[in-house]
């Protein structure tokens, strides 16, 4: 495959945009990168997915490098990631027994409903409560042995404590997100963020930052498979990943300072976009 100078710049721009969006709402950016590589650049789907998976790892690393704000709860993230990877293995095992288009249509409807619920929802902070004493700005804490923590919101300046609710139900959704990754070739961030916010009761910023941490690990599990099977073109991936690394840092900074309302609206718009993509694919109108 040959690639021109202007195409390299366009790939860099794609990575920048996907990195900002992916780190801002915790979805990784794959839902933007894969369709763009297919529809705008005309890449083969497997090559596009391999590039996207490395880019999602890049978004996760960029966002993780800025976690001094303590928004990402790594204990919650890894606990859910354990079942997500198991779901990915299960999804791979049953991939031939389930019609992906039917599953995609069902998921599209589910995401559409979730987007509407997000738009109608209040801008509160899940099950979190305001507290008066957190050490200082940009410091946070997490409880040993528990799925909870505290942080100071960069937008309002308010210190917030939270604790995970309904962990089994959220774990089941994370398992499903992992299975869908194997079945449909999509990431799981767009399922994990609403699940952690609406089911687990985490503040939206904590859910998004924790998801950013998780999606890198989820993508990693699939990335090695695509590389081993010969679908990885490093020269094509490089501009996208460079863009994502730079954009991801900006997205993570924006996330800390944004109001929950803005994050909620952006996430709802992304979910609606993914829902339309999945429904079009189910109807055979998109690749």
């Amino acid at each position, binding site marked *: 495959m040959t690639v021109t100078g202007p195409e390299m710049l366009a790939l860099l721009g794609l990575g920048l945009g996907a990195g900002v969006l992916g780190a801002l709402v915790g979805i990784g950016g794959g839902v933007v990168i894969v369709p763009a590589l297919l529809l705008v650049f005309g890449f083969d789907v497997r090559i596009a997915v391999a590039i996207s998976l490395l880019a999602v790892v890049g978004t996760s690393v960029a966002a993780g490098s800025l976690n001094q704000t303590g928004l990402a709860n790594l204990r919650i993230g890894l606990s859910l990631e354990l079942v997500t990877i198991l779901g990915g293995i299960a999804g791979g095992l049953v991939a031939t027994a389930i019609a992906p288009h039917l599953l995609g249509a069902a998921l599209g409807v589910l995401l559409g409903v979730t987007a509407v619920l997000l738009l109608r929802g209040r801008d509160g902070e899940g099950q979190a409560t305001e507290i008066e004493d957190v050490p200082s700005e940009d410091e946070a804490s997490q409880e040993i042995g528990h799925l909870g923590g505290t942080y100071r919101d960069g937008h309002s300046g308010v210190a917030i404590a939270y604790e995970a609710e309904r962990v089994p139900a959220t774990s089941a959704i994370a398992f499903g997100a992992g299975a869908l990754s194997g079945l449909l070739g999509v990431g799981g961030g767009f399922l994990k963020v609403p699940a952690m916010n609406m089911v687990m009761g985490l503040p939206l910023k904590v859910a998004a930052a924790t998801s950013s941490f998780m999606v890198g690990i989820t993508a990693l599990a699939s990335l*090695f498979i695509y590389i081993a*099977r010969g679908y990885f073109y490093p020269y094509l991936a490089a501009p996208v990943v460079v863009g994502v690394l730079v954009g991801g840092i900006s997205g993570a900074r924006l996330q800390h300072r944004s109001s929950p309302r803005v994050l909620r609206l952006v996430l709802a718009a992304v979910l609606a976009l993914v829902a339309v993509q999945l429904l079009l694919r189910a109807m055979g109108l998109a690749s």
Partner: protein
Amino acid sequence: VIRQDRSGRAMAAVPVDGDGERVAQWIMRGGLVVSLALLLAGTAIRALAGGPAEAMRFTALVGSSDPGDRALLLGALVLALTPMAQVASLLIGWARERDYRFAIVAAGVIMLLILGAVLGGG
């Protein structure tokens, strides 16, 4: 602030920048800087040399004679290994904090990732 869980027991809080998390964050920063530098250098070398993009596996790090391709592959490998190193550092940090429950979770994630890489590579 002494917070209590639902059963009323006091919960021990640790700052997010405690042991495991602090090392994990530096690993992420290091991985980001090194991979970014390698990807930029590799792209520049490949762009100057010209020629089509080719599919490559990590084994080409040894076999390839093109310095641009080697830099690109090494950059991708460093980036891919960064989250694994991060989880490994969390495992060690949480074990040192005697947070064994989550240390076991981290060990489980690492084992599953290695299993996936082995199965995928096969």
